[in-house]
């Protein structure tokens, strides 16, 4: 059997007892990486010279893991899956990476993603389309696509992701694994390539809630290099997952979960929602009070636009450092303007350029009030609505997306084409980013043979409570440590 498909505690025990060595794990993980690369195109870099590390008391010591390519990793190519940084090798580690390194974790690959995290399809990486291990004609969703594909394939127990809209939590659902982004600022963003700073979160993809807790326990902490980080030394996530059920009351939102609220319901959506309600029944069995609440549909309909406006505005500014002057390939031209333009024109994919245009447009003096400022007001309204819910409920439970993984065919991102109600269901995870709420997706079944997920989101700083509920719910289902293993003949 392969220990790489086990949970972290099991692997740690095996390492401690000498049943397996770190060296064996690293080698096997690298071999599997090559197979998954062939099958899913999940990596930008496979670190063939990755070295085993000493096994210590730290649960992560000696165990391989993957890193999304938008984390700055010292001496290791970090591209953000963009041509603009196709040869960029940083000289410093992101704080989260440093924390993992210090714990003895072994990075074995850098995972491919939607360019700079901008996209939810896994189709815009400069290294090509990333495929879903459960069905390679389907997408992984994004932007942490490679990390999701790799963890689902059993290469290692966890991989790092980042989440600006749903970039950890949706790929996790599409790949049948766990995706967790903690409260904003719990993990330092120092060294994470920015997309939209007010929405960006570091996080992790795993195959169990407890593993997510173990990894974030190591990644988190106040960092002098990130002013938005905060001291969470009194929060012990792993301990929280081991306690008896702490939650009492949870809710779900009628407008997003009632089949009658959607036109032209497909069988897939019907099954997905039925499955969700079935999971709610399990919650009740656990002893949770589950209540249906109603939220203004207009507000829900606005969330996708709010996200586009704010994220594109911040992105256009955040990525202005990519000029090819200081790092990245130097552009050609007679003067600096031409050189910058050449670098950016050649470096960015059309999708990103479109987002820059939107971002610039909404920030322009004459448009800012109407678009950017209004988007921030609606963001506030949505966050306040959720905070109101948290006065009564320990968590909001919602289905992830409108069903299982979508086909890669015809996946080109189109904004505003979908029915508004359906779009709200597809994109509601963004509220977790608007409010900086801790949010976790866990697998809750299959639709059409493909995994689907349920999301739990709690109030800021309630990460322990959230993981506690998620962990108990996970144990009521059969998808903990679910793996879609690669075999050599695929």
């Amino acid at each position, binding site marked *: 059997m392969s220990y790489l498909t086990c949970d972290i505690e099991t692997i740690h025990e095996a390492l401690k007892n000498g049943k397996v060595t770190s060296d064996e794990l690293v080698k096997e993980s690298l071999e599997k990486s090559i197979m998954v690369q062939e099958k899913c195109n999940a990596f930008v870099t496979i670190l063939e010279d990755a070295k085993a590390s000493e096994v210590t008391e730290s649960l992560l010591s000696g165990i391989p893991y993957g890193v999304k390519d938008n*984390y*700055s990793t010292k001496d290791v190519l*970090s591209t*953000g899956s963009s041509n603009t*940084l196709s040869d*960029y090798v*940083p*000289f*410093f580690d*992101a704080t989260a990476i440093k924390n993992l390194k210090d714990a003895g974790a072994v990075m074995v690959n850098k995972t491919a993603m939607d360019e700079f995290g901008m996209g939810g399809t896994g189709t815009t990486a400069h290294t090509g389309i990333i495929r879903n291990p459960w069905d390679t004609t389907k997408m992984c969703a994004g932007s942490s696509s490679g990390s999701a594909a790799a963890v689902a394939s059993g290469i290692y127990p966890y991989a790092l992701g980042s989440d600006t809209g749903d970039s950890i939590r949706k790929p996790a659902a599409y790949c049948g694994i766990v995706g967790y982004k903690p409260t904003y600022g719990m993990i330092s*963003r*120092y*060294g*994470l*390539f*920015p997309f*939209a*700073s*007010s929405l960006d979160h570091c996080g992790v993809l795993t195959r169990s809630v407890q593993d997510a807790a173990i990894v974030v326990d190591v990644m988190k902490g106040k960092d*002098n*290099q*990130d*002013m*938005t980080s905060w001291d969470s030394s009194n929060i012990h996530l792993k301990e929280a997952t081991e306690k008896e059920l702490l939650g009492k009351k949870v809710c779900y939102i009628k407008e997003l979960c009632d089949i009658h609220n959607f036109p032209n319901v497909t069988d897939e959506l019907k099954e997905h929602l039925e499955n969700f309600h079935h999971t709610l029944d399990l919650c009740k069995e656990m002893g949770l009070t589950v209540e249906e609440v109603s939220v203004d549909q207009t507000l829900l309909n606005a969330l996708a636009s709010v996200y586009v406006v704010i994220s594109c*505005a*911040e992105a*256009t*500014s955040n*990525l*202005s*450092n*990519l*000029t090819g*002057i*200081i*790092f990245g390939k130097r552009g050609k031209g007679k003067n*600096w*303007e031409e050189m*910058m333009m050449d670098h950016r024109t050649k470096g960015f994919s059309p999708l990103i350029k479109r987002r820059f245009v939107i971002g*610039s447009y909404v*920030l*322009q*003096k004459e448009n*800012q009030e109407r678009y*950017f400022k209004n988007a921030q007001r609606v963001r506030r309204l949505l966050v306040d609505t959720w905070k109101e819910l948290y006065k009564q409920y320990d968590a909001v439970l919602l289905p992830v997306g409108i069903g299982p993984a979508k086909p890669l065919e015809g996946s080109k991102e189109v904004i505003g084409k979908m029915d508004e109600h359906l779009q709200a269901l597809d994109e509601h995870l963004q509220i977790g980013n608007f409010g900086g709420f801790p949010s976790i997706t866990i697998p809750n079944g299959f639709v059409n043979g493909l995994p689907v997920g349920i999301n739990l989101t709690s109030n800021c700083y309630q990460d322990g409570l959230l993981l506690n509920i998620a962990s108990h719910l996970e144990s009521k289902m059969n998808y903990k440590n679910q793996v879609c293993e690669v075999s050599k003949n695929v």
Partner: protein
Amino acid sequence: MYKAVIGLEMHCELKSNSKVFSSAKNSYSQIPNEFVRPVDMAFPGTLPVVNKKCVKDALKMSLALECTQPEYMYFDRKNYYYPDLPKGYQITQMESPVGVNGCIKIECHGKEIPVYIHDIHLEEDAASLDHYFDTSCIDYNRAGVPLLELVTEPCLSSADEAVAFLETMRSIYQFCDVAEGDTKKGQIRCDVNVSIMEEDDTEFGTRVEIKNVNSFGGVHDAILYEIKRQSELKKSGRYNEVEQETRRWDEESQSTIHMRSKVDAIDYKYFVDPNIPKFKITKEWLEEIKKEIPELPLECKHKYMEKYGLSEYDAGVIIKDKSYVDYYEECLSLGMDAKVTSNWLTTQVLGEVNHEEISLKEFFITPSRLKQIVDAISKNTISSKQAKEIFMKSCEEKKEPSSYMTSENTQMSNEEELNTIIKGILDRSAPQIEQYKNGKTNLFDYFVGQVMKETRGKANPVLTKEIISKYLN
């Protein structure tokens, strides 16, 4: 003659250990890229961390200029592309500057005028560019250096007033110990807005902005040039040719040159920087900062004139530089006479400091050393001529002034000793005394001369005269 309306934007680099949003050292260096951290070059994933000392100093200036402080401190991004701007945006303050609606009094040609401050805000400097024949180099030492930008209302009316304002501001920065204010190091840079109007017009004329004037002299000349340029156009009926534009001051040709028109104005797409959380400025903190604001230059000047009776000229000289004031105040605290000290400071001390081209802080004759000299004069141990000699010798040889005041060269002021000498001389001079008493009063000087002869010039002349006349009359 038209009325000129002038507004200033003054950028001043602040003193601090590290840069305003980076842990790199904030210092001037000849070696390029010596003080650089990853964030100064905007490497992907780096984040700004606010330097609290800079915020405090900015608030200090806001308070000193009687501005209103915001309840919350936060920063905005000013987005534009330029090779000296690594992030593609500058972190500055747009929506909520550290101070608004302030006022400061300045003196120009003996007249006191108020200058209204639109706002004062904290921001980061850009890198510096060195241009060569076919290539340009970027030096990131300056990238991220704290800058305080002060924007006045358009309330100045002449080049002299503008310069007087800048000089006052510079000394206020120095007095508050927040900036060095050395224009030679490029630590102060100005943008100047100039328009002209008829004396009785109620609406301002077309405003022209002159960017990046790097010396006070340049500000003076640029304003004069621009007033003249606009006035000539207006006089010849071509005022419509004055457009709302940005020009630059060209030192070489002593003229302003067109840079860009208003239609080409850049939309900086300001928005709040999400990487820096808003933080509350508490009343307690402001009170604490307020206590650290020293007496400002003009307050000092008035105090010196009214309380110590200094001339306006002398008081003006002393307040020119914070180090002068510190020196002067230290002398006073040692119990030295205000007027005497002022005379020494404004003549001998500053004369020598300027001659040696050093700062007053480095000067060998410290207040306590100066006290040795001044005390010796007042005790009549030395003459003022001797005092000046000792002062110079002490400077040259870096020895305590007191070491030059031996019995060999100090004045003879011991009354008893002098009395004995004078009595001896008079005893031997019966005929001269006779003549003196008979009306040949100019013989008085003869007796004094005899005393000087015997003491080799060291007898205290005043005391000598006193004793002689006591005996003769």
